[in-house]
């Protein structure tokens, strides 16, 4: 039942915030805080109290767990919904879901806090939309029925569309419509793929169902599987975004209000990665294997292209948006490498990118609230005016470029090591992307915060509410940089079980590859990771 609450709390808080705001706008903000903080507390409590259960589930089924079978979940809910079509209301939670939920609610809370001052128009409606999107996102990560997944997948578009179109910047309507159409078109392609799978499975077995666990391992000709895989891939690639399908992202991220950018960058684009790990690869392992060269090429192009484009921007927010393209390239690389190490890196990267990029977007937002521009040519020397803001920006810029000791480094390092086993060239080129990251991050700091203070801007430094938000994010990134083990342990069962599903195919031959895979997978002492950090320090 607890899973239902994750969706219901924000869903109920949403209309409440809207109605309350008619008389007292401030009340809407507090309802929104409650609507995200409450499930966040709930899921954290579940994480802490079930840590033992996670370990036990892993120990009991071990690496030999045969996929997503009942009993390996932390919790699940199953009820008939549209039974004539074999659609059930099927929610389930495992380690990966847990991480994504924590991320969703934390980013939702941050989004609410970050718009405390920036949003003064239609406060109630705004928080209605934010809470609605949080509820839909929680639904996306919890659904194991493909129709239900698609339902939530589409449902979260509407609030995001409104948030961008109504509270965005200058070209908000253009950006919102572009975002909407890109996502909707690709989502419909996925729907066709889902339906084809539904009928292929139904014809073969006589059971027409959208239940993901039953659809696993459906036999079909490899050409069909490849087409269906492409349907899923396009939907998730638009979300992630992958190189040629990324063009909505810079517009949407730039034009969205701060809260919108935080949710977009923090959670929404992660659906792409989540969907690939959870659905695409397990359903079509062989097709993914055939596709992986293309996938890795696209990933590497994304890494380098995003970094180069970021460097070329004048608009601070657009710069941050393009860094997302680059960072998500790493995620794609990790997924197509498909070994334990790379997948653990992907999970870490999902979390760390959300934290660091979310923070950067909030920072740009607070800066824009104060100086009313995002143009870096009109900045310069801001450190002297607002040292606390400058220091914070420096920290997150360094996190973004992958400084050892912070979570992003561990994530990208793991992905690159994993990718090395799959394709040496992809790893090398990906590592080149890290060099570009250093360039754009430092160049951004130089233009905005360092140098001559030429524009005589005067504004307030961070207030306690903002300092508190950043402090929490800084702490999380540092902890993950030195001790990523809790995350890895939590996701371990998912990672091994999805790998088990694909074990029969040629996709994951490296099950017993390099020894460090074992070390990390078995929950080695944190020293192992730190030692890895030390070795690569020299390389770079």
């Amino acid at each position, binding site marked *: 039942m607890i899973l239902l609450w994750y969706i219901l709390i924000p869903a109920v808080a949403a209309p409440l915030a809207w109605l309350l705001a008619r008389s007292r706008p401030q009340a809407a903000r507090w309802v929104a805080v409650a609507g995200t903080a409450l499930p966040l507390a709930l899921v954290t409590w579940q994480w802490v109290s079930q840590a033992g259960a996670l370990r036990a589930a892993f120990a009991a089924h071990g690496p030999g767990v045969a996929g997503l079978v009942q009993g390996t979940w932390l919790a699940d809910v199953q009820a008939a919904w549209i039974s004539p079509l074999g659609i059930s209301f099927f929610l389930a939670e495992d380690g990966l879901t847990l991480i994504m939920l924590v991320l969703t609610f934390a980013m939702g809370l941050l989004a609410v806090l970050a718009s405390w001052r920036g949003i003064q128009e239609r406060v109630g409606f705004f928080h209605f939309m934010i809470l609605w999107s949080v509820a839909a996102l929680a639904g996306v990560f919890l659904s194991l029925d493909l129709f239900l997944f698609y339902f939530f997948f589409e449902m979260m578009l509407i609030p995001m569309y409104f948030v961008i179109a109504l509270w965005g910047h200058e070209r908000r309507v253009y950006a919102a419509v572009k975002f909407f159409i890109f996502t909707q078109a690709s989502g419909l392609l996925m729907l066709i793929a889902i*339906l084809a799978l539904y009928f292929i499975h139904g014809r073969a077995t006589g059971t027409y169902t959208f239940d993901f666990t039953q659809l696993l391992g459906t036999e079909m000709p490899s050409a069909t599987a490849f087409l269906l895989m492409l349907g899923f891939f396009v939907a998730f690639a638009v979300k992630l975004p992958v190189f040629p399908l990324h063009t909505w992202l810079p517009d949407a991220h730039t034009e969205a209000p701060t809260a919108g950018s935080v949710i977009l960058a923090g959670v929404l684009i992660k659906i792409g990665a989540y969907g690939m790990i959870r659905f695409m690869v397990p359903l079509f392992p062989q097709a993914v294997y055939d596709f992986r060269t293309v996938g890795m090429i696209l990933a590497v192009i994304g890494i380098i292209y995003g970094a180069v484009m970021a460097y070329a921007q004048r608009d601070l927010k657009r710069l941050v948006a393009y860094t997302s393209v680059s960072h998500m390239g790493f995620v794609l690389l990790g997924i197509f490498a498909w070994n334990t190490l790379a997948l653990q890196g992907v999970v870490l990267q999902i979390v760390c990118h959300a934290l660091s990029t979310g923070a950067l977007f909030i920072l740009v937002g607070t800066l824009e609230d104060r100086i009313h521009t995002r143009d870096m040519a009109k900045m310069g020397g801001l450190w002297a005016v607002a040292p606390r803001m400058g220091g914070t920006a420096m920290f997150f810029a360094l996190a973004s470029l992958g400084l050892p000791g912070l979570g992003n480094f561990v994530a990208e390092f793991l992905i690159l090591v994993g990718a090395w086993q799959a394709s040496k060239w992809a790893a090398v080129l990906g590592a080149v992307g890290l060099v570009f990251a250093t360039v754009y991050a430092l160049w951004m700091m130089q233009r905005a915060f360092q140098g001559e203070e030429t524009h005589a801007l005067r504004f307030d430094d961070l207030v306690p509410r903002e300092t508190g938000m950043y402090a929490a994010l800084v702490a999380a990134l540092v902890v993950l940089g030195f001790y990523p083990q809790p995350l890895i342990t939590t996701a371990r069962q998912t990672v091994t079980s999805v790998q088990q599903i694909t074990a029969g195919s040629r996709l994951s031959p490296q099950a017993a590859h390099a020894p460090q895979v074992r070390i990390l997978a078995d929950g080695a002492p944190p020293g192992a990771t730190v030692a890895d950090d030390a070795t690569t320090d020299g390389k770079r």
Partner: protein
Amino acid sequence: MLTVSPVVVMLAAAFWRSHALALTLTLVGLAATMVSLFLAAGRASRQVTPLLSFDTYALFYIGLLTAATAAVAILSWNYLQRRHVHPEEYYMLLLTATLGGAVLVASTHFASFFLGLEILSVSLYALIVYPIYRAQFVEAAVKYLVLAGSTSAFLVFGMALVYAQTGTMTVSGLAPLLSAGLGGEHVVVALGVVLLLVGVGFKLAVVPFHMWTPDVYQGAPAPVGAYVATVSKGAVFALLLRYFRPVSLDPGSTLFLVFAAVAIASMVAGNLLALRQDNVKRILAYSSIAHLGYLLVAFLATGEQAAIAVTFYLVAYFATTLAAFGVVAALSPPERDAESLADYRGLARRRRWTATAFTVALFSLAGMPLTMGFIGKFYLVTAGAGSALWALIIVLVLTSTVGLYYYTRIVVAMWVRQPDESAGAVSAAVDGASGAVLAALTAFLIVFGVYPAPLIQLIERAVSTLP
């Protein structure tokens, strides 16, 4: 006859006495019809003369038409009230048109087909021009009259050709003929069927018979527009489904290709033409062309799922279109209809709930989740996928993405941050009755968008009597 008499009697009684308390009597009549449907549903379906068959399928559709008529009647009340015309006969016409629709959905014979169609059309000619104070209404009515009249002639000629060659005018006689294909020696029958389809295509306003739709939608009073878009098209589609259900169209046969081409042309043209419109009624007109195209995709699919999909989608389309036109009608000031996009700028500021209802309706048309439009479109695609109509489905998917653009334009206009108050935007108060109808329709769209199972079961029972 036990089952059919109450239906007809109630409809008839309502319009004979309707001059006094037109609306009340109309609603009482419609309510009585509804009740009699439930009574009739308990009994076995029966064939009333060779012309009509009152099976659960017909009863379901009559119920749908009745409910839609009731909604239109209530929405018309305030609209006519503001315009100081004599509204009594208006309701009578509404009821006769619905009677025509009821005959159509129960029709199993060419005679009743033509009879129902004419009752419906003749009532519509008068309805379109009813509040006769604008040249535009007359223009719309004349256009409709001329085109509908000539297509009726096509229809009759088509029926005559089919009859002359085969000696049958019943559905059951037609089906094996169509299944056999229309080549070679059947050339006269083929011609007849083509003429029949021209008549039906005109009523459904599918491409290439769609030219009248935007003009009539724009020209007709908003409640009548709602009526034309829902009851008139829905009844004809139900008839089409009944006539072609027993026909197994072989993909590759000429007839199949004709339908497929019409479906594709409707989806593409409807959506593309709507893109450049600034008139809300015209946007709704073009979007309805596209929606009929979507429906044809499921119509071409085989199996019971397809009939369920079509019916579910029609129910969703009815509720959505009624809500959308209802908003237009409710907001229209006495001197004109609220139809330009500028009228809706910043509507959310002035009429929050009306704007919400319109937004829900537009999202349902666009097929977004939480609304019936989503489940409906999903059903259509499922039905198409079940029969492996991949090309049609891909066109459906791509064109409905195009459709998003113009729906969201209206939505954005309503919710803009800084509305320009100058542009003569409408802010007429929405009366209680219309408000209640809009609220009910919105609730209907959302409730069955989230939990459609009961409705689907009902529809399953309804279509189970189709051959």
